[in-house]
């Protein structure tokens, strides 16, 4: 196994940031770590990147214990921290040069890699400018670029798209795909489920220091037997209406939420009119209707009873 994590724990005084998690990373995949704020994503990857030591558990990289031997992974690792970690008073070029050299690049090879990477992250024309003059999105892109120069075998990105414009965001997502195509394994943490869905081959869902589920998107949806859902907003909710809806044979579950009725059902064409008929019989008026395909948000909701985003 490429990367093998077992029983990993990290407590900060009484905060159980990471509370015994297991997962594996296969070579060449993009694996997503999805979880809300404070789930323990950053703490987990800080341990993988050898920045902090776990209280217990093990991390094996290519069969080597990197808790005992951090050097075994360091040269192979490209780490993109959640916060921008660059020298603001130096230019983009100076920053790239410095981080490249740290990983042993020099001379022509270094210049060539800088050219290539700045192309990928799209900052070629601003290389000579000071980083403090960059926009938030550009800083984040450079932050990623600095981790890519030495052609790392494994790249860890910690919420690289938080708080930036959609354009930069797309650029970053495309860059990640491109890097992966060139052969790097990617660990991608995020609390945007859309990103995890579109980008990752496999997804690990974390919450409160625990790994609550993992697998491909479909596997995760199967896990909770997710059906399609429809959310109805009606004038008034009453018991007989709910009972009538529950009687329908294509409906598997009905819940109320404020003024809304959330129905799990088989969302086929003919079924819509049957549902509307019930409303008409009950003399209730439909204000709005929202059809939902099951998604990771819903998986998270089902598993934890809470929404992924606050």
């Amino acid at each position, binding site marked *: 196994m490429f990367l093998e994590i077992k029983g990993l724990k990290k407590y900060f005084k009484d905060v159980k940031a990471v509370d015994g998690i297991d997962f594996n990373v296969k070579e060449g995949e993009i694996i997503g770590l999805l979880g809300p704020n404070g789930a323990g994503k950053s703490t987990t990857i800080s341990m993988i*990147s*050898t*920045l*902090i*030591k776990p209280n217990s558990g093990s991390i094996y990289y290519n069969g080597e214990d990197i808790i005992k031997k951090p*050097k075994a992974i*360091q*040269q192979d*690792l490209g*780490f993109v*921290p959640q*916060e*921008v*970690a*660059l*020298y*603001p*008073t*130096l230019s983009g070029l*100076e920053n790239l040069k*410095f*981080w490249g*050299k*740290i*990983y*042993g690049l020099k001379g022509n090879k270094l210049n060539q890699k800088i050219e290539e990477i700045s192309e990928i992250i799209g900052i070629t024309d601003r290389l000579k400018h000071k980083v403090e003059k960059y926009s938030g999105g550009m800083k984040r892109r450079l932050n990623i670029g*600095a981790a890519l120069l030495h052609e790392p075998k494994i790249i860890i990105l910690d919420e690289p798209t938080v708080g930036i414009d959609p354009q930069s965001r797309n650029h970053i997502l495309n860059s990640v795909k491109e890097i992966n195509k060139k052969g790097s394994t990617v660990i991608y943490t995020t609390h945007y489920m859309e990103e995890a869905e579109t980008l990752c081959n496999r997804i690990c869902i974390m919450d409160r220091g625990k790994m609550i589920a993992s697998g491909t998107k479909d596997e995760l949806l199967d896990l909770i037997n997710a059906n399609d859902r429809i959310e109805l907003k009606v004038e008034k909710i009453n018991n007989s209406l709910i009972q009538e809806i529950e009687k329908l044979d294509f409906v598997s579950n009905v819940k109320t939420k404020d003024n809304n009725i959330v129905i799990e059902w088989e969302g086929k064409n003919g079924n819509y009119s049957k549902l509307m008929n019930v409303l008409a019989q009950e003399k209730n008026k439909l204000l709005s209707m929202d059809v939902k395909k099951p998604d990771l948000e819903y998986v998270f909701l089902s598993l934890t009873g809470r929404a992924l985003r606050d």
Partner: protein
Amino acid sequence: MLNMLILKLKLLKDDKIMIIIMTVMALVLTFVFSSSMGGTYKPSVVIVDNDNTELSEVLIKEMKNNNLFSSSVESYDDAKSLIEEGKVIGGVLIKKGFSESIENKEDMNISIFKVKDSMEIYQLENILKGILYKFSTSYNTAKMTADFIEDRGISINREQEIKDVYELSADYWKYKNPMKISSQVIDVTNEGSYDEIIHNLIGFTLFFSTFTIVFVGGDILQEKKQNTWQRKLISPVSKVSIMMSFIIATFIAGFAQTLIIVLIGNYMFGVDWGPDIMVVLILFAAFVFAVTCMGFTIAGIVKTHEQLSSIVPIILVSSAMLGGCMWPLEIITSKPLLFLANLTPHKWALQTIKRTAAFGLDVKQVLTATGVLIFMGIIYLLAGLKLAQRNN
């Protein structure tokens, strides 16, 4: 390692304003303190000339040239009342027959009048002795030269010849002061203000360099905040070389600052750093090393740059005070304070640099102080490393 060191040196440009301010402050304060405390105070004396010869006038000229006292010529009665009223510290009375006493190499007909003995009167006596010695020797040399030339049968304008030779001889002395007695006197009297200049210069140099050092070293906290520290930690470079690059860059910044002040001190304040300026620089370097390591420890204790900015001035000002940077330790009598002074790097650097400048100590003679400073540095370094480990 080299890569990181070069980067840190590059980043010194971010601290350049602080470094410049600290350098300039050391110089400005040295200048202000030295000129307000010493130097400008000149006791006044009066001269009474009852001889009224050409020779006595030359003597008066010499007295007036002396810049430790300001002297004026008065009549005997005026002089007496000025002294009695305490407007001047004393007077020099050139008695009648002074000129002849010089010509005949008799005891000089000159005396000092004073109301009471004081340090200043003592200085005046010494200076007068020095001037008279120089004066009579030069005068007699001139006369002998004239006699010598006349003996050879060469006809000259005797008066003019004596004057010329006298001036030549006096001129020569102005720079050399070869006579033991006068040079000693001049040294003693000069010491007050010169000593103050050099003490202030060294004291302020040490004091302000500590700010540069601790704040440049404090950039470790800045790097932690901007996450570049963490990013370096997970790279293949070793932790020790990351820390060493910080320490070396900080040392270079601190030492460069002291070096500049040492050189400016030499050219601007006329500070004489003794026969071997290297010895002085070795001591400054050892001091900068000790404080660099101290800064490293402090940066391990505090968590943010803001905390650093608030506690550092307290630490640095109090250790500089204890170490005698603000005033000489000689005026302190309290045993506990003097004991504490020994714990500051400042004391060891200041005293030894001062002595090196004054007595020209060589490398061997400053070994103890250098050793103590390096030892302090190593202790701090170990403490700093321990703290850095614990923080992880």
